[in-house]
């Protein structure tokens, strides 16, 4: 992964994320249509990150507790959406690569067995909770 590619992917991802959020805020009061998640539509059970949109929407309206109940991963996404645009701008304008270095460190940290297993267990637990909640 080169620095340029990472920044391009991140920018596109952030634009997509904010557009999706804006679309959902605008549509919030409309009658809820079918779920977008392909996994849920085909198998009938929610995927580990089902409910993230609802969770982020709850955060935007200040219902922090509801957001945790819907899907705690929404907090991760909200943090990414808030922090990364500034971080990207900082790196691009000052021609630094702090974000790129942190990304590489993050990948290295996830490569360690203990961290990986811990995160996998957390994701699986969250998934079981999602299925049990019937998101």
């Amino acid at each position, binding site marked *: *992964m080169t620095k340029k590619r990472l920044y391009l992917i991140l920018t596109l991802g952030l634009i997509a994320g904010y557009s999706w959020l804006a679309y959902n805020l605008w549509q919030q009061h409309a009658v809820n249509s079918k779920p977008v*998640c*392909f996994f849920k539509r085909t198998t009938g059970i929610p*995927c*580990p990150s089902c409910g993230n949109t609802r969770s982020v929407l709850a955060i935007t309206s200040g219902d922090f507790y509801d957001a945790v109940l819907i899907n705690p991963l929404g907090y991760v*996404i909200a943090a990414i959406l808030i922090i990364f645009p500034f971080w990207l701008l900082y790196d691009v304008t000052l021609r630094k690569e702090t974000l790129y270095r942190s990304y590489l460190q993050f*990948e290295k940290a996830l*490569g360690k067995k203990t961290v990986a297993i811990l995160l996998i267990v957390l994701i699986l637990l969250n998934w079981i909770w999602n299925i049990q909640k019937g998101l």
Partner: protein
Amino acid sequence: MDAQKVDMYIMSNSKYFQSHQISYLRERLLLLDEDKWMMLQTVDLKDPTTILIVSILAGSLGIDRFLIGDTGLGVGKLLTCGGAYIWTIVDWFLIQDATRQKNMEKIQQFL
């Protein structure tokens, strides 16, 4: 390294690398010390076809990206339901080349 050994290595492992990288790989392997041969054998190369199957079956959870070592992108895929399934479908076509690229990166440290 011995030309015969190098050709044998290239023949048995060519599917793990992009075709345009093979000649470069051969050149570098010929310049390599004999004692690196064992190290080369221990490099864990991922089979692009296996990864493609994983991508088709579990791509929306990002498992294909985790397997080839693109952990960051894997997390991204996992958190977004496979990028609303669009990224998953795009990755069905990209993942084989990405795997070969990663294999090259892995072997690069010995060249």
